[in-house]
């Protein structure tokens, strides 16, 4: 009935006194890692990226919108509706989109369904490993408000409290047409320069990190997965 973890979420802007992962404005402590492993990882904090001059940025945004490489994270049942997207019936390659199995090369993170606590850790890891500008599309009701798992002790309700989401596609499960519509919306946002999730994540890094660390108890990774 009562979903206690949601009450713990700090609203954006509030300062959290327990920022033990933050050494200063540019450095992270990686405090949860064993002493000998800390050297293996980068300790830099993500910084908001500078944009190119307006005309060039518009051109870049056009290229980004027409070459969306998708990292599909089939967390739940919604993933079954993503397969038809690459088949001849829906064919996302018409819009220059393709599935990319590695987060390093992808620009769109597609979350296909409910997110359990265990999955959230992998989502954070994969999202941080993507190179910016990066966009997130959350598919299914479960990723928006918990859906049928609203009361679950093990499923998070709002994915955008842990990583910034650009487009939500509602439905249980949404048809491939709806997902395509979501991509269309994302392309419009990118072209308008409004899909700046990467910078939002860097600016509100403390807030996102606090929310993530509140839920993920076995945090055995660096504070930011470069």
């Amino acid at each position, binding site marked *: 009935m009562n979903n206690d973890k949601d009450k713990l979420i700090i609203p954006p802007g509030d300062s959290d006194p327990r920022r033990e992962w933050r050494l200063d404005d540019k450095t992270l402590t990686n405090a949860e890692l064993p002493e000998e492993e800390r050297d293996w990882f980068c300790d830099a904090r993500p910084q908001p*990226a*500078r944009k*190119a001059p307006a005309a060039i940025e518009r*051109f*870049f945004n056009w*290229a*980004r919108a*027409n*070459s969306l490489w998708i990292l599909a994270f089939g967390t739940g049942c919604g993933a079954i509706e993503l397969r038809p997207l690459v*088949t*001849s019936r829906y*064919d996302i*390659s*018409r*819009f*220059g989109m*393709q599935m*990319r*199995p*590695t987060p*390093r*090369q992808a*620009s769109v993170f597609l979350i296909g369904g409910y997110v359990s606590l265990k999955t959230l850790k992998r989502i954070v890891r994969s999202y941080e490993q993507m*190179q*910016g*500008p990066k966009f997130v599309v959350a598919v299914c009701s479960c990723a928006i408000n918990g859906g049928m798992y609203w009361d679950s002790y093990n499923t998070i309700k709002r994915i955008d409290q842990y990583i910034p989401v650009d487009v939500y596609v509602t439905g249980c499960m949404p048809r491939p047409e709806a997902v395509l519509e979501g991509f269309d919306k994302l392309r419009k946002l990118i072209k308008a320069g409004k899909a700046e999730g*990467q910078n939002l994540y860097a600016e509100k890094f403390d807030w996102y990190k606090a929310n993530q660390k509140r839920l993920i108890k076995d945090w055995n990774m660096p504070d930011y997965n*470069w």
Partner: protein
Amino acid sequence: MILQELPFKLLWAFISLGVVTVWGLTLTGIVMKIFARVQGRLGPPVWQPFIDIIKNNAKRTAISHGIMFYLGPVFRIAGGIGTYMFIPVLFGSLYFSNFSMSGDLLLVMYFIFFGQLGMALGAGEGGHPYSSIAVARGLAQMTAFEVPFALSVISLAIQYHALNITDIVAAQQGGFLNWTLFTNPLAVIAAMIAMLGMNMYNPFSLVIAPQEIPIGPPTEYQASFLGMLATNRGIFNGAKLVLFMNLYFGGATNLVEMIVKTFAIYMFSVFVGAAYPRFKAEDSIRFFLRYPTLIGILAVLVWTF
């Protein structure tokens, strides 16, 4: 005299490099379209590879795993440009002959594999297990298809008494019956099968192997590293096709002829790729070391005796 010509030659070499890059990338786009049509899809626009390169270079962040990781794509593109720079593109042209010289065929054969070795080191430093698997497969397959290709080139060297690509093209002039395709068909068959391996479409796609070891060696490469690798793909494809056109299909005397011939040569790999499933690593290597190698040996023997 040579020094005075150098700026002129350099300028035209870079112009021809631009031409082959655009043509190579357009070919990639056409191939994506063809594969899509074979699968009953509409497919991306033909200019999609260009958009992808712009997007990859427009990324705001990039991660490097070390010096060799950084140098991998540099070696790769150096291999691509190096290969291309020593191949005469148009026979008898003052402008598109690049830096062709005596013995350039050996240099080109070396350059074809130089980039892949550099890439193997770079991908290894990326640390991703799929990269290492793909590098192992790639180098094994490369060694295997090198055998029929080298035999075919040796056969050509015996046939034409030349290791200079311009000389080999010159010997094929005067009607299509003078092409190596008709004068030395065994060498052409061996080399064309080796080309299937070089272009890495099915059935020899085990290096990149989508759905199996996703992406292959460049798994960890992103942003402008990936943009560089994609640009090299255009240059390298173009260079290989021009080399095959010169060695086996009579070369070209103008750009239109070059474009038509390279397109036709490339379509051989593409049609085979669209029709066949993928080999396993051991099958692929055995395949190359069996019939293509035998055909290559025959081609050498025929011209020796």
